[in-house]
């Protein structure tokens, strides 16, 4: 019964995705295409939840549905053109796409069935990760353990990638300045309603940050949620007020500080004769050392992601980059 329901939800959501993308291809209005991409992310996140990937669903909902939509909309405002997009019907393109698709479907025929417990993916390292997490790290969330400890080097690289994306956007667009005509209209109802919600979002962000060891969550998600609290403030009260709350000059420093916290945690273990990012060096008890290391590293990631996301939002909300 439960498996049938899971499968029903899975297939329905996949068909929704196909429909959404089909309409997004057809539409000539970029605004509509962006909104449809927002729902696309929502449905994808729901699908991840249905496929048992709780943490991924969390990330996709916060990052894909929340931040990407806001980002694309502010880019559309900067470019100022969103209607009557030309669409060319490319026969050659269609031919290539159909050919590639047919080849891929032919290749997929050999794949093991979905949910098969004996598939090659599951017989290798996966069970080791689950066992070692219980033995060496002793936190319930295996994803956080693998992310921050077993594959900590990998995650360090990804944090640096995010940081450099922030730097690249800053180089391309700069912070700009806020033009008065871009300020939002006064809307008393929104002002009153939004204020408590900002507090709620910020507290929820902290909860996600520090609850990541036990349930779904972690630094990546928490950073984006925390930033979306400030983004909400700036959407309702205006960018110039938001820049008074969090000055744009401190954001690059915070982002660098986040990456630095991550790197220094690794350096400490290197100095005490262990390998880079081996957290058991942080305390006399290896298990509590792991706990401490994961906490430090996750806060570094959270800080870096928060400041980079807000930095990118500020860059896209300013105008006049040429001068």
């Amino acid at each position: 019964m439960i498996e049938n329901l899971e499968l029903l939800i899975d297939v329905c959501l996949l068909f929704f995705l196909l429909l959404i993308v089909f309409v997004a291809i057809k539409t000539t209005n970029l605004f509509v295409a962006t909104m449809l991409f927002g729902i696309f992310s929502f449905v994808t996140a729901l699908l991840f939840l249905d496929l048992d990937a709780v943490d991924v669903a969390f990330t996709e909902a916060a990052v894909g549905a929340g931040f990407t939509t806001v980002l694309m909309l502010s880019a559309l405002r900067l470019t100022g053109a969103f209607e009557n997009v030309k669409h060319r019907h490319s026969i050659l393109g269609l031919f290539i796409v159909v050919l590639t698709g047919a080849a891929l479907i032919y290749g997929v025929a050999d794949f093991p069935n979905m949910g098969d417990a004996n598939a090659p993916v599951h017989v290798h390292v996966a069970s080791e990760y689950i066992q070692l997490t219980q033995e060496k790290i002793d936190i319930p969330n295996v994803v956080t353990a693998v992310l921050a400890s077993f594959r900590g080097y990998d995650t360090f690289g990804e944090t640096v990638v995010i940081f450099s994306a922030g730097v690249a956007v800053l180089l391309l667009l700069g912070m700009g300045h806020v033009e008065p005509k871009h300020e939002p209209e006064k809307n008393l109802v929104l002002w009153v309603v939004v204020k408590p919600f900002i507090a709620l979002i910020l507290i929820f962000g902290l909860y996600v940050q520090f609850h990541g060891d036990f349930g779904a969550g972690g630094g990546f998600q928490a950073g984006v949620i925390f930033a979306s609290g400030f983004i909400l403030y700036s959407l309702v009260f205006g960018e110039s007020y938001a820049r008074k709350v969090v000055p744009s000059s401190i954001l690059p420093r915070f982002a660098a500080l986040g990456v630095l916290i991550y790197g220094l945690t690794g350096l400490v273990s290197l100095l005490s004769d262990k390998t880079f990012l081996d957290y058991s060096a942080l305390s006399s008890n290896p298990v509590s050392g792991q706990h401490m290391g994961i906490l430090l590293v996750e806060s570094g990631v959270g800080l870096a992601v928060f400041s980079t996301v807000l930095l990118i939002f500020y860059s896209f909300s300013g105008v006049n980059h040429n001068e």
Partner: protein
Amino acid sequence: MMINSMLSDICLLLGGIFTLTGAIGLLRLPDFYSRLHAASVTESLAAPLLIIGVMLDTGFTLDSAKLILIIVVMVIVNPTITHALCRAAAHGGITPKMQSESTQKNKLQTETEFSSKEPK
């Protein structure tokens, strides 16, 4: 315990019916403002019913507190969004169907539209 699960079933059933009604209204009603009404049926009636149905079934845990928080968020957020959207539409020059012409002619118009405009 028995009563709890029965109540939960009733809440879930009612919630399901109201969501469906709201969605059919969203699809079939003739103009933007009436569709706004249909959408708010789901958001302020069906949502609490469904969540209360789930709450009754789980019993009182920490999750119940979060579920109450979700109800509060939804009950505050959705009317706000509806208000802001309605205001934006009014500023954007969307007029309700009934005001545009004389009432009688309009009645006929909407009726014909209802019969001719089948959802695809």
